[in-house]
């Protein structure tokens, strides 16, 4: 379904790369590790929002109707969530690659950083898929997408920034596994809520 919009994939990757490039042009190098981390997650957040908002918002009414006659709501939302998780993870990896080649990579604990990025990206994707479904049911949906999603993304974002700042500085003052578990369970809860609640959004 989603692969029919190949140009959209290209557009998302281009969006992420060009945002990173703008940051590169304006910063060149970043001395402060905190700033590096913060900037990375801001880029990440907006790239993910952009990528996932297409999943429901980009579909026409007719296409949606067609999908709904073919599959059950649970199957639709699960496949969308899985697709979006894969998409956001791929996007994150591309962003990390471009970001660290252009601006530099001060990360000390790379495995922890990558783990955080993957988990965080899937959390973003799960929340955003659901919000995108909600926003697509309203009239003016693009502006609503941002308003609705940012407060809901905040808990994930806070855990993620905490973890990645540990990874970047290499100072493991606390055990990161607790946070990783919290992040993972938050993802599972969001996906499960999405699965349970989507049927109510679906029929008109």
């Amino acid at each position: 379904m989603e692969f029919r919009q190949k140009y959209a994939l290209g557009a998302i990757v281009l969006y992420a790369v060009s945002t990173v490039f703008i940051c590169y042009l304006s910063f060149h190098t970043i001395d402060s590790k905190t700033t590096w981390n913060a900037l990375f997650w801001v880029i990440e957040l907006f790239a993910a929002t952009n990528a996932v908002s297409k999943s429901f918002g980009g579909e026409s009414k007719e296409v949606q109707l067609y999908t709904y006659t073919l599959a059950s709501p649970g199957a639709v939302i699960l496949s969308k969530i899985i697709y979006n998780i894969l998409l956001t993870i791929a996007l994150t990896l591309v962003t990390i690659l471009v970001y660290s080649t252009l601006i530099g990579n001060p990360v000390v604990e790379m495995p922890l950083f990558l783990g955080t990025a993957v988990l965080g990206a899937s959390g973003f994707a799960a929340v955003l898929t659901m919000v995108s479904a909600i926003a697509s049911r309203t009239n003016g949906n693009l502006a609503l997408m941002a308003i609705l999603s940012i407060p809901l993304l905040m808990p994930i974002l806070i855990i993620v920034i905490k973890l990645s700042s540990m990874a970047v500085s290499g100072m493991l003052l606390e055990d990161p596994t607790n946070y990783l578990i919290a992040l993972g369970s938050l993802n599972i809860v969001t996906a499960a809520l999405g699965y349970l609640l989507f049927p109510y959004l679906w029929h008109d």
Partner: protein
Amino acid sequence: MKAHWWKALGIILVLYSIVMGFLGKVPALWVLHETIRNLYFHVTMWFAMMTMLSISLGYSIAYLRGFKREYDVIATEAANVAMMFGAVGIVTGMAWANFTWGEPWPNDPKLNGVAVGMIAYIAYFILRASIDEQSKRGRIAAVYNIFAYVMFMVFVNALPRMADDSMHPGQAGNPGFGGYDLDSGMRAVFYPAVIGWILMGVWLVNVRKRMREVEFKFLQNELD
């Protein structure tokens, strides 16, 4: 009149807590001093807010099961009243923080969490306002409400406990209130105050719901 005893109880308990809150004996505490009296007002606001949000959640779920219009109205109004309690809680908390922590908005995870949580609920009202059709609005808003509730609880109750830099009691290794500053005299005011404010909140929701019903009937009459 018999059905209204709880409203009277609510008024009595709140009045009692206000009078006793200002006149009652409090233990002399380090740093807090007399500001501990704010416990009766600030902390009770959050208890009342959590209760209202839980009521809102309950009615949202009930709405999704039965699609009764009244449930949707109650869910909205409970969230409204919760926002009121939240706003008062923030103001009383800022006044308290100003005296004890030295600034009205210290960088505390609990404060930031509540701020974002309230933004999530404001987004809930914006979402409601943006959909015209009543049944669709109720359904979509109920779904969002459930999400917002989960995130709010993660934010206000789970994250600050994990954080290492909160100044609120019961977090980041700080002892909870029970531990050191609630003596039995204060308990005798604090718990009635919590119950009193919750009853007042329920009453407010009730009044607002009935107001909405009247508005609805009025509109229907006009249409006929």
